[in-house]
């Protein structure tokens, strides 16, 4: 091995994870079979709001193969309350959150009873034998109505449907001026109300959980993003000692925030297994997943932007209503707050105010979904910048350029109080415009408009940034979050020189095993193939904060790098001893130590030689512990601020309302890249989830609170046939807050793409008097907007995105 070996970081390594996944050698939780395994099924409420007056389980208990049937009354004393780790204000109202309803249900899909049987089929059969009587209560569905005086209440004991109101004001914080002053003196005022529809994460692997109570520890396998947090929360919720619980996240099939949760099903499976003393499995059906797994987004955004006539922005006021659904799950209240720092985006607003009221309704609880707060903020500001440009009659890119932070102004502290470390909006935009053919498309748009083409062309821009890499613990503390934002890693040097990397990050499709191997290969100078990455089991990876918020690389991998530094520091002592040199006289390069300045031909000792020598421990420096293994816990100093310029061209058929994406170009700046192949995949997938919000997806409840989009025929996760190919490229402004210079990428595509698409659609039909179309921009809504020129095309288009659930257009979709 020589010092000129090509670095692993930056290579498009094919993934280590693939061979098992490609051949079906998988360990999804539902694949697990244990001796004596029992199966649980859950009876769910068809009512959105009702008192349970009686439950008769006697017939179910008599059915073949049934071991037990349990209700909320049976489990009331032991189930505790599902945890919410983010009390955003001191006076936040939080209801008791049972895993199985005891006397009242608050959303359709809430568990009311469970069956444990020999087989999954027998458990499902026995649900038919449970008889529940409900006394219906008025349902609360509309957020604005929910907080009006005299509204019916979701939770009587709270006395209100308003959970909390959270405020950031730049005048009060000292990070900017008074927004009311900016508004009252505005030359131009843009006032809009946008709707962030309710979405469903819709990971491909339905959630599954197995609990084995037969060992000294309870072992829970779960399709979760957060095995470490789950273990802690099980201990705190169920009063089971933490050291008696082991949680394993085996292969996990996607999460997107949807598996960042401590679920009722995990608690109930645990309780059932504990009662029966036998292993129990629960695997949800897709319908259960869509109905009862947490939803995302669902905000009403009232926005006021003030500007001067020359296009300079002077103030931004954001007033949100955020739908919590019926309960506060793990981080439900904090999701909209994560957007509070991002509405000002890349623009130099001198004054800013953000007020968010969290509202209870009789719907499925909301919580994190890819982007969590930042897509909502980015959508709002990027739509507003287009509206400002339209108001002033200037090109929407020009208005952005006028207001964004210039390349030479970094690091830049924003009106929301964050310090963006690096970025180059000019460079990303220039590259994107060139790849897109921006000027030519504008010319074509003008021509088609002039000749009255029935298919109009629109161009949408999104010059986004976001904050990720959650998170500096002190910042989380200031936001009243219940935990820190650090991550842990350990490196174990095996006697043969192979390396085990233990990470607290918990991948579910991201490719951490490959990326971490590349990083460690460079750090320790070992072959990529010699690195094994261990994760997702609290027994082997005992400490961690898991994977969400695009944090794994910028926080988790930094812990790995720090652990590698400690390994090298220990190895240097041994190397110096073996080379008969002083510790300060040896240097490490390409996997070996040499006497400094002795040249490449000088005697060297490799990290593998040292690993074996330390294992033997026959001749170590005096007083040295025979161990190279090291661990580190990394707490980031700042968030990570990826950015990019996304450009979307849509063709809108003005006769049918059909929207076709003709081209989509994005140039993202995520700093240094570990694996370009993995990054490109993250961007593609992210783009599609954002595009799906713009065009296809919406969770719809009817007037009784029933979810009408409870299957994949109704909730329109797009297929390959619904989508174009994308042109992706990158610019590179290394992060200055971590040694690898990396930024997060997992959520960027989703955050950026939604406004790019909607801006393009509105741009295509603005000359019909259209200034907004509510998402998802279905053909019916687009057609309606063109016909009426209405600025708010809800009404007739207030249906789901065209799935089977949208047949009843007279329904009171909420």
């Amino acid at each position, binding site marked *: 091995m020589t010092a000129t070996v090509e670095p692993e970081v930056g290579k498009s390594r094919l993934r280590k994870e693939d061979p098992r996944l490609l051949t*079906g050698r998988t360990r999804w939780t539902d694949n697990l079979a244990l001796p004596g395994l029992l199966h649980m099924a859950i009876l769910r409420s068809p009512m959105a709001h009702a008192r349970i007056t009686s439950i008769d389980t006697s017939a179910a208990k008599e059915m073949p193969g049934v071991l037990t049937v349990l209700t909320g009354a049976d489990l009331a004393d032991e189930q505790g309350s599902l945890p919410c780790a983010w009390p955003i204000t001191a006076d936040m109202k939080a209801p008791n959150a049972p895993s199985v309803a005891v006397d009242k249900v608050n959303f359709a899909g809430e568990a009311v009873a469970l069956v444990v049987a020999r087989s999954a089929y027998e458990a499902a059969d026995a649900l038919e034998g449970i008889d529940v009587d409900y006394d219906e209560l008025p349902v609360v569905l509309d957020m604005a109505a929910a907080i009006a005086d005299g509204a019916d209440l979701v939770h009587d004991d709270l006395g209100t449907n308003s959970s909390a109101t959270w405020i950031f004001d730049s005048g009060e914080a000292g990070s900017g001026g008074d927004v009311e002053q900016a508004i009252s003196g505005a030359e131009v005022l843009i006032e809009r109300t946008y709707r962030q529809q309710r979405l469903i994460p819709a990971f491909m692997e339905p959630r599954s959980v197995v609990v084995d109570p037969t060992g000294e520890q309870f072992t829970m396998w779960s399709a979760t993003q957060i095995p470490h947090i789950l273990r802690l929360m099980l201990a705190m919720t169920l009063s089971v000692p933490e050291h008696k619980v082991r949680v394993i996240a085996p292969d996990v099939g996607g999460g997107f925030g949807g598996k960042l949760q401590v679920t009722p099903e995990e608690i109930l499976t645990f309780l059932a297994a504990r009662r029966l003393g036998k292993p129990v499995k629960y695997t949800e059906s897709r319908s259960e997943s869509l109905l009862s797994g947490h939803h995302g987004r669902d905000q009403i955004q009232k926005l006021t932007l003030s500007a001067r006539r020359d296009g300079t922005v002077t103030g931004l006021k954001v007033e949100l209503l955020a739908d919590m659904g019926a309960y506060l799950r793990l981080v439900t209240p904090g999701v909209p707050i994560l957007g509070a720092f991002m509405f000002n985006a890349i623009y130099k607003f001198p004054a800013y105010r953000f007020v968010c009221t969290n509202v209870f309704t009789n719907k499925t609880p909301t919580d994190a979904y890819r982007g969590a707060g930042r897509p909502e903020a980015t959508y709002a500001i990027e739509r507003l910048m287009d509206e400002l440009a339209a108001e002033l009659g200037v090109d929407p890119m020009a208005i952005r350029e006028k207001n964004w932070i210039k390349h030479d102004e970094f690091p830049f502290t924003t009106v929301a109080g964050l310090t963006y470390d690096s970025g180059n909006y000019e460079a990303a935009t220039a590259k994107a415009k060139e790849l897109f053919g921006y000027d030519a498309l504008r010319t074509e748009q003008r021509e088609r408009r002039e000749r009255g083409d029935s298919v109009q062309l629109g161009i949408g821009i999104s010059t986004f940034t976001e904050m990720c890499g959650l998170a500096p613990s002190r910042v989380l503390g200031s936001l009243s979050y219940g935990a820190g934002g650090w991550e842990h890693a350990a490196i174990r040097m095996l006697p043969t020189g192979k390396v085990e990397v233990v990470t607290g990050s918990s991948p579910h499709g991201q490719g951490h095993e490959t990326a971490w191997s590349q990083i460690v290969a460079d750090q320790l100078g070992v072959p990529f193939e010699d690195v094994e990455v261990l994760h997702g089991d609290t027994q082997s990876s005992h400490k961690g904060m898991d994977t969400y918020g695009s944090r794994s690389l910028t926080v988790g991998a930094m812990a790995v790098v720090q652990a590698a530094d400690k390994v090298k520091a220990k190895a240097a002592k041994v190397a110096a001893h073996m080379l008969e040199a002083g510790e300060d006289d040896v240097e490490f390069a390409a996997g070996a130590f040499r006497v400094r300045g002795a040249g490449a031909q000088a005697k060297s000792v490799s990290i593998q030689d040292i690993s074996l020598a330390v294992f033997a421990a026959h001749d170590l420096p005096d007083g040295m512990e025979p161990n190279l293994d090291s661990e580190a816990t990394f707490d980031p100093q700042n968030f990570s601020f990826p950015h990019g310029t996304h450009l979307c061209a849509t063709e809108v058929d003005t006769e049918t309302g059909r929207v076709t994406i003709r081209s989509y170009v994005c140039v993202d700046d995520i700093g240094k890249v570990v694996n370009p192949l993995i990054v490109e995949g993250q961007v593609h997938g992210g783009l599609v989830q954002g595009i799906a919000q713009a065009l296809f997806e919406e969770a719809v409840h009817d007037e009784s609170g029933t979810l009408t989009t409870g299957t994949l025929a109704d909730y329109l996760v797009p297929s390959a046939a619904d989508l174009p190919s994308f042109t992706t490229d990158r610019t590179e402004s290394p992060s200055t807050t971590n040694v690898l210079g990396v930024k997060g990428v997992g959520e960027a*595509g989703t955050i950026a793409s939604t406004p790019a698409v909607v801006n393009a659609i509105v741009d295509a039909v603005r000359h019909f008097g259209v200034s907004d179309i509510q998402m998802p921009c279905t053909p019916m809504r687009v057609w309606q907007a063109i016909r009426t020129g209405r600025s708010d095309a809800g009404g007739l288009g207030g249906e789901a995105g065209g799935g089977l659930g949208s047949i009843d257009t007279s329904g009171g979709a909420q």
Partner: protein
Amino acid sequence: MRITVTVDGTKYTDDVEPRQLLVHYLRERLGKVGTVVGCDTSNCGACTVHLDGHSVKSCSILAVQADGCEVTTIEGLARDGRLHPVQQAFHDNHALQCGFCTPGMIMQSIDLLADNPDPDEKAVREGLEGNLCRCTGYQNIVRAVRDAAGHMKGGAGPEAEQVTGASQPVGGGN
């Protein structure tokens, strides 16, 4: 009911409940857990296998309907330690992330290539319409299928998949 099914080259005779879905028979009776269940309305395609060489969603047919048939699952594609060309192309083109949709996506892709050995992008996208992926945005899946087409001289299809009494490599090799 008693059924006899050949799955990935092994013959099985079992008594099954008439209502048992093929996917549950494969997973729970035969331990073929490489084939997965992603939905309950046959929208997602994660459970796709081949029945006598043609793709079917194994959540949408009963085990008894497979009586006398040959079933190929994702676990039966690789031969002699070599990946099927479509599996290899999925690896080479980073066409999977979490991997949950991958078994169904690959089985459907092979069927697609049997019908059309040289599909353009549109044909691939339409041919995979019944298989959902939430991770990749499909772009690399489309690339992988077209890449695989270039490597599959013999094409895919029922004949190439018959394993009982034949030693023909799946998909013609590359």
